[in-house]
């Protein structure tokens, strides 16, 4: 299933921050990780990641440096302290959304299980 454009845009920042919280990384590997972790459910156009990274860098949430690895010049990004704080805030906010929706899905399930199914 493909995620809606709005949801992709909203979730990109916390996903990128959370991946960088595991350690320094570069664009190609970040996208690879997103694809694997989401079991191919989240498929960004690869090029769209970079504007997200640049915006985060502009806001001081991540920092970058050029480095050579396997004979390639790559731009590595890493989380800053304010990036860690931002990630924490994102996590709290997404937890609220997640727990609210989880409760609602359960109710919906109960309703659907009974005779008056409104969700069908």
């Amino acid at each position: 299933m493909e995620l809606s454009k709005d949801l992709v845009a909203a979730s990109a920042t916390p996903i990128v921050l959370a991946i960088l919280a595991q350690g320094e990384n570069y664009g190609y590997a970040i996208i690879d990780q997103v694809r694997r972790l989401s079991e191919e459910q989240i498929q960004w156009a690869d090029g769209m990641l970079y504007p997200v990274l640049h915006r985060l860098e502009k806001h001081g949430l991540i920092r970058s440096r050029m480095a050579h690895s396997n004979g390639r010049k790559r731009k590595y990004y890493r989380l800053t302290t304010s990036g860690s704080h931002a990630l924490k805030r994102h996590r709290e906010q997404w937890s609220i959304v997640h727990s609210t929706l989880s409760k609602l899905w359960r109710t919906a399930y109960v309703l659907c299980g009974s005779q008056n199914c409104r969700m069908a």
Partner: protein
Amino acid sequence: MFCVDRRIAEWRNGLAETGRFTAANLDELEAHLREKMEEFQHLPLSDEEAFLVASHRLGEKQDLTAEYGKVNSGLIWSHRFFWMIVGILAFAAMTALAGAVSSVLVAMGAYTGVNPKLLGFFASGIKAVVILAGLGFVLWACLAVRSGSTADRLTRGALIGLIAFLPVLFATRMLSPALTARVMGPSQYGQIALVMSYMSIGLTVLCYIAMIVLMLWLRKRSTGLTA
């Protein structure tokens, strides 16, 4: 035959000419594209197919341009200012060239003793032709920049040409009337100058009308393309 490096360079130039990407942005995207293509190496894909799939994965040109445009908003204006200055320089060069050509003609005519009024008409006509040719060149350059991958080279070459030629043109423009006036004497030179200044009224109006038409056409064309 499909040449990977050339195809990648074309793809990169296509993005560069939108003015929404910095060189570092393009380096990063190109590195990503190449890495993606290498990933496909073990698949039974030709170089061309690998390029097509990898560039598709990176995203469509208009989506990338829109997203990078949001991040690099300052860049858009520096790109626009760059073109404005190119335009101002090109206009200065065009009028200087027209002036220089016509005044050299007048100087040559003065030496050979052509009728001053006729010389005035002729020089003004040549001036008009040079200006129209200049506008035609600008038009051609606009089209070449829009559709070709040679935009970068064209601009760099044209800029160097402009900067090198402007002083020569201005010097010719300034010196040849003085020379002509000395050769012909003030009264005959006055006749040429009179004819040329009457002609230049019409010429200036025509030139501005042509520029306005060109501007409206380009505006329609560019808004149609970037909408």
